[in-house]
């Protein structure tokens, strides 16, 4: 499953976009958009997120 953002906890800091190898994330200032077609489920965004707001649910 591709990465999923919890908009309740996301700080819109853009940190996850900086480590996404697939250009699957775009911060549009107040929303973080995941391009699910591009996501390769590497989990980088989940690890780097300072608040645990983005998760790759395996399976």
């Amino acid at each position, binding site marked *: 499953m591709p990465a999923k953002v919890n908009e309740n906890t996301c*700080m*819109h*800091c*853009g*940190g*996850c*976009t*900086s*480590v*996404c*190898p697939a*250009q699957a994330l*775009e*911060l*549009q*200032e107040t929303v973080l958009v995941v391009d699910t077609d591009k996501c390769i489920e590497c989990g*980088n965004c989940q*690890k*780097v*997120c*300072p*608040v*645990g707001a983005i998760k790759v649910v395996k399976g």
Partner: protein
Amino acid sequence: MNYEKEWDVIIVGAGPAGNMAAQEFAKRGMKALVIDRKQQIGPPKRCGEGLSIRWVKIGKLKPNPRWALQEITGATLVAPNGEKVYIDTGSTGQTGYIIERSQWEKMEAEKAIRSGAKYMLKALVTGLVMEGKAVKGVKVSREGKEEEYYAKLVVACDGVDSMVGRYAGLRTAMPLGECDSGYQYEMANVPIENPNYMELYFGTNVAPRGYVWVFPKGKDVANVGIGISGDSAETAKDCLDAWIEANHERFKDASITEINAGVIPVTKPVGEFVGDGIMLVGDAARMVNPIHGGGMGSALEAAQMAAEVGTAAIKKGDTSKKELMAYQKMWQEKRGGEFKKILHVRHFVEKLNDEQFNIVADLVKKGELKPEMLVDLGHGKGLAELIKALVKASPSITKFALSFLKG
């Protein structure tokens, strides 16, 4: 609001890099447009707001009480065992400020506007206008419309995301292990021992491969933040919350006025700062001091260099990668060597365990290491001295430490 379509230079991002670039291009007579996705310059800050005097001078900033909130003349380092080391940096002229960054950024933008630059806000750059491999402008999503703006040169000052560079085919994606995950509360009613001193706390239980900071913004207001390794299993938020909880006595009457989060590059800069018609500046090019993660100052300096080279290229009518490469060369000559050494220090410090950190604090306490040496490390100097002292005090460290002396 309507904007002209054609510009000499389009700058993406109105942070420290973008504002300085705008000032410097506009001052040289270039028609400059700054585009930011925010609706307001400044907030939300992603920053501890520490700025050393060296960068204040390089950036030709005139400290104004509206943003230069707290003068810093020293640092308190706290080892994992709680041992405190006080470093008087003021006596060697290494002072600095904790600034009100949002206010400062707005005033820098005002300066740029007075020099002739224009600003477009709440406008997201979603892509680039390309002609073959050359950048000819930007695609913007604004006021519900998709628009295009054209320029002889695009300067990407878009911060850690660094998407604009990627749109041009430059490789800016960061490996996880080369960045820190940061989280911070600005808090009021915090007891502060000495507002002139920054506080830094180390230890695996405090911050895995990083540190907690308390940066005073006056007598009882402070940025209380943490940076931990980007690949740690814990989140920065959980680590900071745990640390505050563990220091309950100190923080029980304090509360938060802001929550900040962000990712900090602590690595070498990107391989290529330039392409045909494009330059990367600041966090977008990963120009951050890799030991403490400060990046505002180097963003200012790099923006000055980019404007000098960029203006000459525009005037010559040649903004090809070959021409713009002079900017990368200039940066490498001025700052490249220093940042490389600082990264080497970081790689060493990252390997120290809590016990070895405690030994360093103890050596400083006993006068066997000069406290100023710890400041030098932040400039990439003094590693050999540190290693020699550590090897003497703790022979078990010898093998890996000596490998760093060669490197």
